[in-house]
């Protein structure tokens, strides 16, 4: 009952605000949706205590959804520790974002629509994480995609927002094809799409081979890779990541909710949820590790040179998702979920803090047109510091004291090292390199935005002002999470209490996390060391000698451009996919559709119809004797017909 309330309260809010927005008014819509989310968040905490800490996992069946032949499917809420964690993350961040939006969107024309979309998104996300079978999860999966499309394109009068929304939708379709095929494969193999049955039978199928196109494939590997393609699309992993930076065209609260804390982590959630299957597909896990590590590194390098404050954070998100994936790839699912949880807090904090900066600067997003803002907006400044320190994983390795990111990022890197495999080593070293760059770009962002002489025009700078309280207060909650979530939950997620905490919600053949606790000290200290180097570099280049970046860019111009142009992914895709598709489409349209199909088909038929119509109406001469003649011809024709057929 309480589970259903958590899931359906946001839907109720969305329906009320969406359909009756005009009657409720802006205030009413905000009150309804925020109220629903705050209640849902409070209930989620209750569920978390009951399920995760009390070990009381359960599945509630709502109703039967399909019943076609052997394919029976119920709509049920599966609430175990994994789901309870996601419930908390989703509803708390969503509640914060809802409240924050009251201030951020205050001047918008269509507030009820925005609030309805946010709540609708939250509903689909909750549906996704509480699914007890793959089809229901797919429903939520597509639902968040839809809500994301609507929210990215919320300012639909901006062409760039529309383009970004369509791009996000299309790139996600590529992933969704993989996901859908994965579901089909699972049904083919297991004869069911329900998690309980799949997980129970996964071990039996570990040696099954599928013969497709005359080649034998390891069945579980194929299925897991297909599912992972879906996860890559949703979680913006290397190759399918191009939509995420563009998605920053949406309002900033949307970026914080969807593109930092919730939807983009759905892929990680999927891999963790399917861990009992992935565990029997070691090759697939290796791929996950490589892709995750490569993404972590790639996105960090791009983050170094971006100038748009939100795009820096977007690439940072992309990079951190890579960390989560390679943690899952080395079977450290607990570590992946732990990083997912802490990341949700500090990344949402960073996004919303950036939103406060943008709000203060009258929608200026270019960091090179900011600077010196710390005097003007000290609260935001402090919050951004907390978020950045949490992101870079600041802490003292020997004592084990630090901000949230310190605990989660370190356990992820330690797990990668402890895996003792080629993939693990690859992930570890790329992760270390990414940590260095993370520190650099995070503090570059801080220094460029808040320190030094302002580069903003005088008018904007003079009018920069702290955000209203309704925007600042929610951030305190996130800041508290960014500071304390790591220390508090370390023991549960990856520490000694992990067995009882997870209670079978995730499954690993070997306990990699135990080994991660026993890695050499230098492995534990290295991330912090490179982080300090990164911070020092950023300080040197943007505070001490502000002329250095330009010199560096000149000196390493190819490298600089490579990073600035995001490794030319968009250009590559444009050349390989978009243009050929466009040329093909145009060719088919003009030659195939226009000339051939329209010419012969619709237009040809229409022309024939028109000429027939002209002739038919010309028969109508108006002379009675013509009419009589036609009747007689008709009779004669019919009689002749019968005499010929019956008589002959």
């Amino acid at each position, binding site marked *: 009952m309480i589970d259903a309330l958590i899931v359906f309260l946001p839907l109720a809010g969305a329906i009320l605000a969406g359909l009756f927005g005009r009657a409720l008014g802006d205030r009413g819509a905000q009150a309804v949706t925020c109220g629903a989310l705050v209640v849902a968040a409070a209930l989620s905490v209750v569920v978390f205590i009951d399920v995760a800490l009390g070990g009381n996992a359960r599945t509630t069946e709502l109703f039967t959804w399909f019943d076609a032949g052997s394919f029976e499917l119920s709509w049920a809420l599966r609430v175990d520790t994994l789901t309870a964690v996601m419930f908390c993350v989703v509803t708390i961040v969503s509640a914060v974002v809802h409240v924050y939006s009251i201030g951020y969107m205050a001047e918008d024309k269509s507030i009820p629509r925005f609030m309805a979309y946010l709540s609708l998104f939250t509903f689909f996300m909750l549906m996704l994480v509480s699914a007890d079978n793959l089809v229901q999860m797919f429903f939520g999966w597509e639902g968040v995609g839809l809500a994301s499309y609507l929210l990215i394109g919320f300012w639909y009068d901006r062409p760039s927002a529309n383009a970004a929304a369509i791009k996000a939708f299309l790139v996600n379709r590529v992933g969704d094809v993989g996901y859908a095929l994965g579901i089909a494969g699972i049904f083919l193999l297991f004869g069911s799409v329900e998690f309980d049955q799949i997980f129970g039978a996964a071990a039996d199928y570990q040696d099954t081979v599928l013969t497709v196109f005359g080649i034998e494939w390891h069945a579980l590997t194929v299925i897991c890779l297909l599912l992972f393609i879906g996860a890559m699309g949703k979680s913006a992993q290397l190759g399918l990541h191009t939509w995420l930076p563009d998605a920053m065209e949406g309002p900033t609260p949307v970026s914080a909710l969807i593109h930092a804390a919730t939807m983009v982590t759905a892929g990680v959630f999927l891999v963790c949820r399917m861990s009992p299957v992935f565990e029997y597909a070691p090759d697939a896990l290796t791929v996950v590790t490589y892709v995750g590590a490569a993404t972590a590194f790639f996105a960090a390098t791009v983050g170094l040179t971006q100038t748009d404050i939100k795009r820096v954070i977007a690439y940072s998100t992309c990079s951190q998702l890579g960390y989560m994936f390679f943690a899952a790839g080395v079977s450290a699912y607990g570590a992946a979920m732990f990083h997912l949880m802490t990341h949700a807090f500090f990344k949402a904090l960073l996004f919303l803090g950036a939103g406060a900066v943008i709000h203060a600067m009258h929608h200026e997003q270019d960091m090179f047109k900011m600077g010196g803002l710390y005097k003007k907006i000290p609260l935001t400044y402090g919050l951004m510091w907390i978020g950045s320190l949490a992101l870079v994983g600041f802490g003292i390795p020997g004592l084990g004291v630090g901000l949230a990111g310190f605990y989660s990022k370190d356990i992820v890197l330690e797990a990668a090292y402890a895996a003792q495999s080629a993939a693990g080593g690859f992930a570890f070293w790329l992760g270390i390199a990414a940590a260095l760059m993370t520190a650099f770009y995070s503090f570059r962002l801080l220094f460029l935005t808040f320190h030094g002489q302002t580069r903003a025009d005088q008018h904007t700078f003079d009018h920069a002002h702290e955000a209203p309280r309704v925007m600042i207060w929610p951030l305190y909650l996130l800041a508290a999470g960014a500071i304390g979530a790591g220390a508090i939950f370390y023991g549960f997620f990856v520490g000694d209490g992990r067995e009882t905490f997870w209670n079978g919600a995730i499954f690993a053949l070997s306990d990699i996390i135990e080994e991660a606790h026993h890695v050499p000290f230098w492995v534990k200290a290295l991330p912090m060391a490179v982080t300090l180097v990164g911070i020092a570099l950023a300080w040197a280049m943007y505070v001490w000698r502000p002329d250095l970046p330009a010199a560096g860019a000149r000196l390493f111009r190819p490298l600089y451009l490579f990073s600035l142009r995001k490794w030319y992914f968009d250009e590559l895709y444009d050349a390989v996919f978009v243009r050929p598709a466009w040329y093909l489409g145009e060719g088919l349209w003009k030659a195939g559709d226009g000339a051939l199909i329209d010419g012969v088909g619709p237009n040809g038929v229409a022309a024939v119809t028109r000429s*027939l119509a002209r002739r*038919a109406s010309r028969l109508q001469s108006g002379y009675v004797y013509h*009419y009589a003649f*036609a009747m007689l*011809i008709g*009779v004669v024709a*019919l009689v002749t017909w019968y005499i010929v057929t019956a008589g002959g």
Partner: protein
Amino acid sequence: MDTASLTTSLIAALPEVFLACAGIFILMVGVFSGARATHTAMLLSVAALVGALVLVLFGPSRAAFAFNDLFVNDGFGDFMKIVVLGAAALTLIISFGYIRREQLDRFEYPVLLVFAVVGMLMMISANDLISLYVGLELQSLALYVVAAFRRDTLRSSEAGLKYFLLGALSSGMMLYGMSLVYGFTGTTSFTVLADHFAGQAAAGQELWLGALVGLVFVVAGLAFKISAVPFHMWTPDVYEGAPTSVTAFFAAAPKVAAMALVVRVLMGPFGAWVEQWQQIVVFVSIASMLLGALAAIQQTNIKRLMAYSSIGHVGYALVGLAAGTEAGIRGVAIYMAIYVLMTIGTFACILCMRQKERMVEGIDDLKGLSKTHPLMALALAIFMFSMAGIPPMAGFFGKIYVFLPAIEAGLYALAVIGVLTSVVACYYYLRIVKLMYFDEPAEGFDRPVGREVGAVIAGTAVLVLFFFVAPGPLVDGAAAAADAFFAVAG
């Protein structure tokens, strides 16, 4: 004929007798009250039609056969009589304002229509070639006159004259066909003919070619009345030339009555010859659907458009008859009832097309109607969508009920052509919707529209739109009607 059987017969034909007496009474009222009696006469006529309707529905139980088997009562007749009486009453109601404005308000108008309806009821219940002919001629004579009712305009007189000349020709052909049938079989009674042919078919005998030729002539005469191709030529000219209220009447009640007659003749006496007359019906049906779809595209006058539209609809209804099965006949009955609803609604809208106290008939005059008369535009759009056969309007179900039996009977080509032509026909129906909703308004129509017309438009629109909610009564009624032929035959 003794008194007892005469009484039984008179009771069996009570609705017809009542309506005939009412017609004479209204004529007397008109004659003795002078020129101002039109309004009274109109009201009385509507009351008489409703009274006859009540008698059909709730009157004393009527014997199956009467007047020495010249007259038959069955479920099919009752269903069709209800549709005819309802259609006639509604078309009279919507013409109240029209005949007053157009100075057509002479009391003979409703009287003639009442007599025409008596003729229709007679022919629906005909059980003999002779009684059929008498009913048909009573109807036709009345209609010849009303077609030319506006004697002072050339178009109306021309319409009446054309209708009369061609009608006479068709009557002649039908009489000739009847004489051939009588000559070969020696009887004019449907019952005897049916037994005769059924016996002949059961014995495996060849049927007489002469009787078959007679059947062709009879069918040709009947096809003229339902304006099926190639006996349709009068329709556009008469629809355009006749006063609009008369056109509305033409498009509704006589069509149903004539269609009922076609069904009765083909399914009754010639029921055993399904395979023979099926060929005629298929040919006529295809030709009607094609011409109705194609020729209407070129029209600019809405009344001419409706003429071609009605030709097409007759083609669709004949698809059900061509199947020759119980489901097919049920389809015909349903289709005609729905057709009448749509047609009356559309003509009620057309009767509202007045600009500066003058009637206009151009399709272009409907431009931008959604802005000047949003409700009327909505209703007309519903009728157009329904005629085009777009779900969930009633017209869609009408088409389903005739196409499915045709497919079950193996008439695939017929069904396919039917569907294709209805796609073509969509063009001109939807063009009207486009004109109303997407073009800049022309000059708005005069107000007020008139309460009774508004009520008819609203009522028919609601029925057409929400038919799918409760199709039960109509479908069950039509099923009972179709049962009449098969219960007798079986």
